[in-house]
């Protein structure tokens, strides 16, 4: 596979948008899917489908094997130590809710503190807000600096003996800043505070070695990693698997069910109640294959090249204001245009086939801090090219024309 011609692996690029080729710059929202992933799902449903883990007939046995092979694949890809540390969920959002609920109900008490940052997506704040409401906990926000980063010193300042967990994003989905995870984890380990990483934007762009990151929890959305929608992953370090109570109750996750008591299976089953997304899990293997064939480092380099090119070009446009200027960043390029609201930008860009996102990107705290209610965001995936950036820049000029600026 050739990263320059990778677009041909994605069927969606055959279609036109308003008569123009699709320039998809909304991958931070959700990535497009390569043929191999789509085909695997189709093929699975057409020839191999069965519910997993529950029946002993051939279809079920094979489906179960494919399903568990996907788990192995994820384990290997993330370099997790144990396969039972890989839990399938609905989304990164669910992964974080699972931990907030399970960890929060058991370990967080009145007066305790939860430490997050101003960069967090609502998915890594609202679940903790629920715990705050239930338990009377405080949530502290490590501030973002002028460059749109969170500095380790700010986190250090906010840690104290009441801090029960640190929940931090790997990459900001607005500024693209990479947070200083290693330092956060080192600091937290010293103080024996567990760390949850919202890896939703990290996993699609960076090499993830979970043993090296050494966090306690890591949340992933497969749909941003060229995988199917409706599938998420929760990595949870082995030492927590027994400690944490189950999150949802239902079929599969039990050991023994009596009228007066219920006991639970071991992880990962314990955390996977009900019928799972069999086809999606199986097809996610193909998404990992896709990434591995290209090499995540090559993907990152390719995306960085486009990103740098985009930053250069947008900087030259006087009306454009780029949001944040982090030293280490990935994929995401948020901006505003003086005199044109991001919503209008998105609509006008769309006429040229350019798909971006406008709004607060589920980061209202960060937007309040910057003092604007919305930004336009172009986010880069493996299928983007410099030409896409050129088309984006032309389309931006078109915005200015429409608004007579």
């Amino acid at each position, binding site marked *: 596979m050739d990263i320059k011609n990778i677009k041909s692996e994605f069927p969606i690029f055959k279609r036109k948008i308003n008569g123009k080729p699709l320039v998809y710059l909304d991958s931070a929202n959700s990535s497009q899917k390569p043929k191999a992933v789509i085909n695997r799902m189709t093929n699975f449903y057409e020839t191999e489908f069965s519910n997993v883990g529950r029946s002993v007939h051939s279809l079920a046995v094979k489906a179960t094997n494919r399903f568990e092979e996907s788990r192995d694949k994820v384990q290997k890809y993330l370099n997790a130590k144990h396969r039972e540390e890989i839990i399938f969920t609905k989304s990164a959002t669910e992964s974080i809710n699972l931990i907030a609920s399970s960890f929060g109900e058991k370990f967080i008490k009145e007066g305790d503190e939860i430490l997050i940052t101003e960069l967090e997506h609502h998915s890594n704040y609202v679940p903790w807000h629920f715990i705050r409401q239930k338990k009377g906990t405080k949530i502290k926000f490590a501030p973002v600096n002028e460059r749109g980063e969170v500095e380790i010193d700010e986190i250090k300042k906010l840690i104290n003996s009441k801090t029960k967990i640190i929940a931090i994003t790997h990459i900001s989905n607005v500024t693209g800043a990479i947070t200083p995870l290693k330092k956060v984890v080192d600091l937290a380990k010293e103080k024996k505070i567990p760390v949850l990483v919202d890896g939703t934007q990290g996993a699609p762009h960076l090499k993830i070695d979970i043993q090296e990151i050494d966090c306690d929890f890591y949340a992933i959305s497969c749909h941003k990693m060229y995988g199917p929608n409706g599938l998420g992953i929760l990595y949870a370090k082995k030492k927590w698997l027994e400690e944490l109570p189950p999150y949802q109750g239902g079929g599969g996750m039990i050991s023994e069910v009596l009228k007066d008591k219920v006991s639970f299976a071991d992880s990962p089953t314990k955390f996977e109640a009900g019928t799972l997304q069999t086809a999606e899990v199986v097809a996610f293997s193909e998404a990992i294959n896709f990434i591995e064939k290209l090499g995540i480092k090559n993907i990152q380099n390719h995306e960085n090249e486009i990103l740098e090119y985009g930053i250069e070009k947008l900087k030259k446009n006087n009306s454009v204001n780029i949001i944040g200027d982090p030293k280490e960043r990935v994929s995401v390029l948020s901006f505003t245009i003086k*005199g*044109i*609201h*991001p*919503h*209008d930008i998105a*609509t*006008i860009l769309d*006429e040229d086939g350019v798909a971006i996102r*406008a*709004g*607060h990107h589920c980061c*209202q705290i960060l*937007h309040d801090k910057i003092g604007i*209610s*919305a930004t336009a965001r172009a986010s880069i995936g493996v299928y983007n090219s410099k030409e896409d950036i050129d088309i984006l820049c032309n389309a931006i000029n078109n915005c200015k024309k*429409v*608004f*007579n600026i």
Partner: protein
Amino acid sequence: MELKELYQEVILDHAKNPRNKGKCENYNHDAKAHNPLCGDKVHIYLNLDKDKNIKGLSFEGEGCAISLASASILTDTLKGKDLSFTKKVTDDFLNMLKNKSKITLNSLSEDQVTTINSLSGVHEFPMRIKCATMAWHTLLSAIEKKNI
């Protein structure tokens, strides 16, 4: 659909120079709304006298050109009108965005009709319909919600 029809001169004008911005004098009704998906906000202020005439009408808000223009045009069109007329225009406006029907009420000036009709292009941009209708829905809430 042409962008030009969406972003007509009159809309851009209202967006850049919104009429009746701020709190109108002696307002006795108000309501606010916002669209959490995009962050658009609007707050409508209304001075409704005993005879159900809109003596004052204004708005505060931030958002895209469509939402600002819509709020501005709303206040400009309905200030001084009575309540039953206001509800009729609002109905017509919401219908226009839903069904592409045009507004043709007699008691509006030709100019006013043209201005309101300029927002009909939004019909072709489904994700933007909320931008255009939010102020009008908020007006209806404000009328319901007496606030002295």
